[in-house]
């Protein structure tokens, strides 16, 4: 049973979110933290000694453990360890004394500094917005510990050094953090602690720093919402309308109620919820509900019809989002015009952990356990549903089994539905507190909407007789993700949803005459950001068009990009590095080909060269992807590589064969047999090279995804002359 040796640790480390015990000394130190203060009162210290909280982000325990509070959800992207790295480095803690937990929901303390008053995780912003904040938190705590040690020794702070979690006096005497934490807590908080210069970093940029969450994740540790069990908890499964926007007309729950373990069936705005004493009866009984739906307000179009409408719109002028020079005149005068149309399907995120949430409501306060990605919106929606204050909604953010955007929902429907059930049961039960877990099945997830929306792009690009790009006309058709959401004001301007056009608008390529137009469509299928958002389709179009232009102009695809990117040094940097490492231009064995793509998203620059090989039937396999990334200071290099690997897999996997289609408004796919995920046999080897940089760090969760599919498509073209303009690639045999 050797594998279990760290299981106990695992539990205590990762459940720390609800186990943190703080005493009076700690409470006195908290900077403007009423919520943590409340938590402190509620919790009873496990031992007599108190944990000491130095600021919203750093706790030192009597046993020397440094606990870093992550304000961001970690759904696999490595953020929690990354934030801990920032604190630990400035604090000069030893890595093996560091633990990480999730901060409570409290936007006053834990807002995303790129988003204003919202606490939340997304847009590859976790490390960028926290870089200075978390370093400063570590540096502040260190200065206070040093001062406390100096006082203990009757000396001054300049005689005290800190290394690997040990405070050392110039005489050689030593103290541990835990020895002086309580005294340090009483000292004034330095306003402007001195931060390290990059050459002083010990953990930031360190190559072999293990992620704090990896070990627990190799023993199946119970760290996910799926694993939460509360006393007397009921599990709920919800039947939602099979067409988006439908409502329950009537229902018969006789059969469902006959299932052993089912205790109740309630109607809520989201549909019909079956409550059972455990998961299986709930899931089983949900499928036995007999529901009559009212589809009068529902979306009833199929994707074929929506696509036909999009394609016809692509032939008409849209709303201009960018106009440089005169593209029509340039195209009229061009020696050759390349015109291409691209279609992109709806895509489900399908995170590995089916969506889930646990809620308890006592009539005044609510407590939630979930992989909360927008804590502030989750608080707001829960409070509005239950008629309580947002601050009376306590959220325990848990590790999430993936998200790719799916848990960052503008309407917080995952917790919202749980709150609807809690409210219904509260009324029925005469106010008794009833823990409820809402468990989605994979079918609920695949059919549940909130997809990467469908898009159509139509592009005309002109070259002159010398093969120079002279003009570009670009039309995008698709629904807005953000219109009608709380994020509209920030990201939709003059009717242009930035996420519909990002990656085309402001392209770094030196295109002399450019027109960009957008048709924003109305579709009743809810859309959502999906790993890299708009870049998932815009990068594909830009990068495969560039290759079409290179071919028309008789130029090498890398050479053409270099020419058009000469004023974009960071694009050039990654392009050149990827090309060099991939051996661009060197011969390949017969049946193999390379393709390239370069794209900036979320302020990180990524270039990829894909190598594909073909079998006798003409099917291809992606063998290798060489990736170069410039994301500023590389906080956790190995995690950056991991995110590039995962991002590439996500991009290629969906491009190969994934699409969500609708027939008369109903989703055709339901699970992994017909929304077939990328598997190990599809996965290329990935080689990631990180550009050395002193620039501020930028995100890595998403930027690996956009260039992957176009690099593959360009490799396929290079080998076969075949253009893959309709996604997914599995449609290629159909024409």
């Amino acid at each position: 049973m050797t594998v279990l040796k760290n299981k106990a640790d695992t539990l205590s480390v990762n459940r720390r979110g609800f186990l943190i015990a703080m005493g009076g000394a700690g409470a006195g130190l908290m900077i403007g933290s009423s919520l943590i203060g409340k938590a402190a009162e509620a919790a009873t210290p496990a031992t007599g000694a108190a944990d000491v909280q130095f600021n919203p982000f750093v706790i030192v325990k009597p046993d020397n453990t440094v606990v870093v509070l992550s304000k961001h959800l970690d759904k696999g992207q490595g953020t929690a360890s990354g934030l801990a790295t920032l604190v630990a480095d400035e604090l000069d803690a030893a890595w093996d004394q560091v633990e990480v937990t999730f901060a409570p929901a409290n936007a006053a303390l834990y807002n995303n500094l790129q988003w204003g008053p919202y606490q939340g995780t997304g847009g590859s912003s976790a490390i960028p917005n926290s870089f200075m904040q978390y370093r400063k938190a570590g540096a502040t705590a260190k200065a206070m510990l040093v001062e406390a040690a100096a006082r203990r020794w009757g000396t001054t702070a300049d005689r005290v050094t800190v290394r690997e979690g040990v405070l050392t006096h110039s005489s050689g005497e030593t103290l541990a953090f835990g020895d002086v934490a309580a005294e340090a807590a009483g000292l004034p908080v330095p306003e402007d602690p001195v931060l390290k210069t990059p050459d002083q970093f010990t953990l930031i940029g360190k190559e072999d720093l293990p992620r704090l969450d990896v070990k627990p994740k190799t023993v199946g540790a119970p760290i996910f919402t799926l694993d939460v069990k509360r006393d007397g908890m009921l599990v709920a499964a919800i039947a939602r309308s099979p067409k988006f926007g439908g409502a329950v007309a009537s229902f018969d729950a006789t059969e469902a109620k006959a299932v052993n373990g089912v205790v109740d069936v309630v109607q809520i705005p989201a549909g019909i919820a079956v409550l059972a004493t455990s998961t299986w009866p709930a899931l089983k009984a949900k499928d036995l509900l007999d529901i009559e739906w009212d589809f009068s307000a529902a979306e009833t179009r199929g994707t074929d019809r929506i696509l036909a409408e999009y394609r016809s719109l692509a032939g008409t002028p849209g709303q201009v989002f960018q106009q440089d020079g005169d593209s029509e005149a340039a195209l009229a005068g061009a020696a050759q015009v390349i015109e291409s149309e691209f279609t992109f399907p709806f895509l489900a995120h399908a995170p590995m952990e089916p969506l889930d949430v646990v809620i308890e409501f006592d009539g005044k306060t609510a407590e939630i356990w979930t992989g909360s990605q927008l804590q502030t919106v989750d608080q707001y929606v829960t409070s509005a549903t239950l008629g309580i204050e947002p601050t009376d909604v306590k959220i325990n953010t848990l590790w999430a089994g993936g998200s790719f955007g799916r848990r960052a929902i503008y309407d917080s429907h995952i917790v919202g539905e749980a709150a609807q059930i809690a409210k219904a049961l509260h009324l029925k039960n005469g106010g008794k507190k009833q823990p409820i877990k809402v468990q989605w099945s994979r079918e609920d997830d695949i059919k549940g909407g909130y997809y990467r929306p469908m898009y159509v792009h139509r592009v005309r690009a002109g070259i002159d007789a010398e093969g120079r790009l002279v003009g570009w006309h670009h039309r995008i058709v698709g629904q807005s993700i953000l219109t009608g959401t709380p994020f509209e004001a920030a990201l939709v301007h003059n009717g242009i949803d930035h996420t519909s056009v990002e990656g085309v608008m402001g392209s770094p390529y030196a295109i002399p005459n450019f027109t960009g137009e957008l048709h924003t469509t109305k579709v009743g299928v809810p859309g959502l950001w999906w790993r890299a958002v708009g870049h998932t389709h815009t990068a594909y179009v830009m990068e495969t068009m560039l290759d079409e232009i290179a071919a028309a102009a008789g130029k090498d695809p890398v050479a053409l990009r270099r020419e058009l990117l000469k004023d974009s040094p960071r694009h050039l940097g990654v392009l050149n590095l990827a090309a060099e490492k991939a051996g661009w231009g060197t011969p390949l064995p017969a049946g193999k080909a390379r393709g390239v793509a370069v794209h900036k998203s979320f302020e990180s620059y990524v270039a990829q060269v894909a190598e594909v090989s073909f079998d006798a039937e003409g099917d291809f396999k992606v063998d290798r992807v060489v990736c170069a990334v410039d994301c500023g200071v590389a906080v956790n290099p190995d995690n950056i590589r991991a995110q590039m690997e995962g991002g590439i897999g996500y991009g290629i996997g969906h491009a190969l064969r994934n699409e969500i289609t609708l027939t008369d408004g109903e989703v055709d796919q339901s699970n992994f047999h017909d929304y077939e995920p990328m598997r190990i046999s599809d996965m290329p080897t990935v080689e990631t090279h990180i550009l050395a940089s002193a620039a501020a760090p930028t995100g890595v969760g998403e930027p690996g995804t956009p260039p992957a599919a176009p690099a593959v498509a360009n490799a396929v073209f290079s080998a076969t002359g075949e253009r893959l303009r309709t996604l997914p690639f599995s449609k290629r045999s159909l024409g």
Partner: protein
Amino acid sequence: MAFQLKVNGDTRAVDVDGDTPLLWALRDELDLTDTKFGCGIAMCGACTVYVDGFPTRSCVTMVDSVGDSEITTIDGLEGKAAEAVQKAWNDLQVPQCGYCQSGQIMAAASLLAETPKPSDADIDAAMDGNVCRCATYHRIRAAIHRAADMMEG
């Protein structure tokens, strides 16, 4: 209905309907939450346990079909291959979200117990049923090779 399940060397009683998938009996009745739920239709491998030593999808294995077979979850996983796999997973930092990984490790340990020196094709064949939505496949492959080397050494 009461069933006696032999799990990780113990005999444990569960009182559920016979059509209850073993996955939910383990998780909800026996609190063995290290086995995860991903699809419920044998398409992802997140729920992999061993039944009499064979990697089995517990989400489609009904409790009334188990009889007195020996069930092993990752909690009860032991042996040279398992240790090598878990060490390699740590060394190469395989997990991202981690949700699929107990299933991946069960599959990989079984592969190495049968085939101590697997080729890439062997790995594809043994691991293709285990989905990782974070696409940690590149490292899974490398970690299996690493574990094979460790077992040899």
